[in-house]
């Protein structure tokens, strides 16, 4: 009797488990390493974050970090910035920049930052993308916003044309939108100044990223 231990065939279970693991691995995207910790306020909205965003991160000290979720467009914007501020970067560095996550440095400091190993980058104290409320059009943040807006528009037009050419459905909501992720403790006037720069670049529509909060019942 002791010989007949109940053995269970676990093969189907393993099959299922690995199927699910593969599914979740492929569908989920990892959060990019963030150079700053930002704790956004919460709200009761149920609107999802757009698929493609130009992300403006503002931390509690008012430092501004920028990122673009579309790597191809991000490269194009960086090339525009290199032209505007006369900074030289190799094609390899441009590629690196596209995958580097949010960056809060002035243009001149970006090549040196990209030289570093990924782990060493986190230790760099970034001063934030410089902006100036008096001389807005000369500031780097204004140029980032302006170039991104133009490139985002081009990207949208290009994909629309491609879709109509091939007779495919085109998702109009899937264009690069401007999202702001700011720390709840940031002074609102600081944020207003940042947004002022974007408004100067004719960016008016913002998605403010917030944490989720339960909706109250009447």
């Amino acid at each position: 009797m002791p010989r007949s231990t109940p053995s269970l065939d676990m093969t189907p279970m393993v099959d299922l488990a690995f199927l699910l693991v593969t599914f979740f691995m492929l569908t989920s995207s990892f959060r990019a390493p963030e150079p700053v910790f930002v704790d956004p306020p919460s709200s009761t909205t149920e609107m999802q974050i757009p698929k493609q965003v130009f992300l403006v991160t503002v931390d509690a000290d008012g430092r501004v970090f920028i990122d673009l979720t579309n790597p191809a467009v991000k490269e194009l914007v960086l090339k525009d910035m290199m032209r505007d501020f006369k900074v030289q970067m190799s094609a390899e560095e441009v590629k690196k920049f596209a995958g580097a996550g949010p960056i809060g440095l002035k243009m001149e400091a970006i090549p040196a930052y990209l030289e570093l190993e990924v782990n060493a980058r986190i230790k760099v104290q970034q001063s934030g993308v410089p902006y100036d409320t008096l001389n807005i059009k000369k500031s780097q943040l204004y140029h980032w916003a302006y170039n991104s807006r133009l490139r985002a528009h081009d990207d949208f037009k290009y994909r629309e044309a491609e879709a109509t050419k091939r007779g495919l459905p085109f998702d109009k909501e899937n264009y690069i939108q401007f999202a702001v992720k700011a720390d709840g403790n940031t002074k609102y006037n600081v944020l207003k100044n940042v947004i002022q720069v974007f408004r100067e670049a004719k960016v008016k529509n913002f998605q403010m990223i917030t944490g989720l909060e339960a909706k109250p019942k009447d």
Partner: protein
Amino acid sequence: MAEIQSNGGGGGGGKKRAKKQSTRVDMTPLVDLAFLLLTFFVLTSTFSQPKVLRMIFPEKLDEKDLKNMKQPEVKDGITILLTGNDKVYWYRGALNDKAVLEETDYTKNGLRKILVENNLTLLTQLRDFEKQLNKIDDKDTAKRNAIDAKVKQAQRDSKLVVLLKNDDKASYRNVIDVMDEFMICQIAKYFAVDEGMAPLEKKLIDLKTKS
């Protein structure tokens, strides 16, 4: 391998032993690992979905336009003032020496109560429309659109105007909280004032905090 065979003794016996050994692999650790990974991916992928609140800012105006622009009149509205330390003040009507400033807070019985009380006409209208919508068939788009149009008209006709002003000390969290409160209370017309507080409003807050 050779050693095992030599230890096994007789050739015939060795063969029999090899046959008896089962080819089953213990899959329990594999299942453990699979489910561990599964839980990890499930938890990390679904809970990190942030939500967004849309804010639309007007295009920047020239100084010429700014001079010609009239200050919004708030005869029938309320003004909310945000300042440091999560403090909120509000007053009704136009700003003058007679304006009565009152302190409130971000809780359910604070700001929300004030907004709901002032927005009762619109809220009851909206609730009526919602009841009508529930009675209508989902497929009856003509009727649905008619009610949607009525909702928009009611929002346009709403008399309540809420102004939001802040000073240097107010935080972003305060502003988002108030914006959220506007949405909960379905305020149709609200404006965040770009210039922030007027000097008189700052004075009123000073007086209020001292008393």
